[in-house]
């Protein structure tokens, strides 16, 4: 890690004529100390990491690729969305759930330990014109990148009363940041699988109800979503059906994380594949062929 040049890396993929979603050009390999660890819920951790480099460059949607452990098991790095950034304090957070041995090891990292991190990686969410109505739809750990997007929008002067945040989780304990949401004056709709808070059921269905019942102009919606694959597939279907714009942040298995191996691809509606690490992770929901991901 003696080399932290920040040369332009990947040429934007100009297959389509749209403006590229990306700010992909500043990947670096860094040794980053853990500043603090918070256990928000059983198995849900937030790590605060110290890096001027990343905090200055990170945009909502970017992720980092972290080496967890050095015994060779797990072998590969693990990707995590940048969850929030504090430029003035040169720090950023990741939020994650322990699901396997990689996240288990990461959850054992203690303040002072230094992590080997590649980042920031990937493109980012494109902010809407301020005339749009914004809807953020998070499922479970999908809150991780959307929280960054949300706070970023507020910082950029978006009117919270024109933002709706839909947040679905297993149960009320996993509905994070409820206090903070309240303070923000955003419109918050929550759902839980067990009905322990908000409406019982899927967040996508709450969303559907809202856009149908809410007398919304679908053309004027800017929807952003992150969550389990099934949920994003549903969002994609709805976006196609109702014609609203929707950006989703995807997760696939990653090896290199830098666009070299073509392991992390997602199938587009036109039959081609794109890399989640280098061409995403943010994609236009309408362009993804979700039936071919699973």
């Amino acid at each position, binding site marked *: *890690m*003696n*080399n932290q*040049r*920040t*040369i*332009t*890396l*990947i*040429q934007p993929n100009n297959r389509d004529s749209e403006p590229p979603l990306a700010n992909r050009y*500043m*990947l*670096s*390999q860094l040794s980053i100390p853990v500043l603090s660890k918070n256990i928000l819920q059983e198995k849900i951790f937030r790590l605060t990491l110290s890096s001027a480099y990343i905090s200055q460059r990170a945009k909502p949607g970017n992720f980092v690729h972290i*080496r967890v452990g050095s015994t*060779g*098991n*797990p*072998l*590969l*790095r693990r990707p995590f969305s940048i969850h929030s950034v504090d430029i003035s304090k040169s720090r950023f957070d990741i939020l994650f759930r322990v699901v396997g041995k990689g996240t288990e090891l990461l959850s054992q990292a203690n303040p002072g330990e230094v992590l*080997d991190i*590649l980042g920031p990686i990937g493109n980012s969410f494109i902010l809407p014109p301020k005339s749009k109505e914004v809807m953020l739809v998070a499922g479970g750990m999908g809150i991780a990148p959307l929280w960054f997007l949300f706070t970023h929008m507020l910082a950029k002067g978006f009117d919270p009363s024109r933002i709706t945040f839909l947040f679905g989780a297993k149960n009320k304990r996993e509905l994070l940041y409820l206090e903070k949401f309240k303070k923000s004056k955003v419109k918050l709709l929550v759902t839980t699988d067990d009905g322990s808070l908000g409406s019982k059921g899927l967040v996508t269905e709450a969303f559907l109800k809202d856009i149908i019942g809410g007398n919304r102009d679908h053309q004027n919606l800017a929807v952003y979503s992150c969550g389990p694959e099934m949920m994003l597939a549903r969002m994609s279907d709805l976006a196609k059906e109702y014609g609203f714009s929707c950006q989703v942040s995807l997760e*696939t*298995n*990653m*090896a*290199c*994380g*830098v*666009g*070299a*191996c*073509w*392991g*992390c*691809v*997602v*199938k587009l509606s036109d*039959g*081609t*594949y794109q890399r989640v690490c*280098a061409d995403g992770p943010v994609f236009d929901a309408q362009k993804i062929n979700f039936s*071919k*991901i699973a």
Partner: protein
Amino acid sequence: MKPKPDLSVTIAGVKFPNPVLVASGTFGYGEEYGALIDLSKLGGIVCKSVTLLPREGNPPPRTVETPSGMLNAIGLTNVGVDRFIQEKLPFLQKQKTRIIVNVAGRTIEEYVEVVKKLNPCKGIDMLEINISCPNVKEGGLAFGARCESAQTCIKQVKEISGFPIIAKLSPNVTDIVEIAQAVEGAGTDAISLINTLVGMAIDVEKRRPVLGNITGGLSGPAIKPVALAMVWKVANAVKVPVIGLGGIMNTQDALEFFLAGASMIQIGTANFVDPQTSVNIVNGLNRYLKEKGIERITDLVGKLETK
């Protein structure tokens, strides 16, 4: 002060500044890692396999981690040789390192076509002929697994190639020595091994293979012992230089391969784990030779004592 040890290696008339290459498919076309390491420190870059026509590759998921290894079933995704020459080669030509273009095909004719298109290109030092990809239905392993087809393929490519060629062999065979001798007989300038071992992982919850392609190729530290045994056997059975790869993670691993008889090595999966691996190994080899008072890396090649 002792003089700086000599890491250079010459294979088929091509002089490499050091014997550490990065392996095909794990390093893209070089540019992807350009921000992370100084490419001029590498012995050379072996590009992702190029084929005659562009290939989208296999349905995802394409990778999954396994104990001390990973399976991949990328399926030779690449832009095809024409766009490779237009879009990827210019970047590579500018790098101060050796460039080895890896070639794959569904038929022998395709291999030959690709090589013909590459022949006029500047900035290519060697070709690596991939007759060992386990993740495509036609070609690839189909050629590398039997002596006759391996021999025919390499022979025809060698006949028309403007560059020295390396035959990249598959470990999924009964007798690697037989295949190595066949491609040596066909005139290859060097042999690289190993490509990945065929493997599989199953998602018990879904009752489905994890990989979209059902099976994939196993790489990483898990396969190092298999690679080392094959390199040792082949190096003792052929006269052409052998390039060793499979699970090399650090200088110690690299030294094992040189002792077993590899003239050069390639770093594959390790690039994903730590992009600095190849450069670290170059530095580690320098340090090791200096410490031991060994003048040239070539002095180590094949120096395994088995008596």
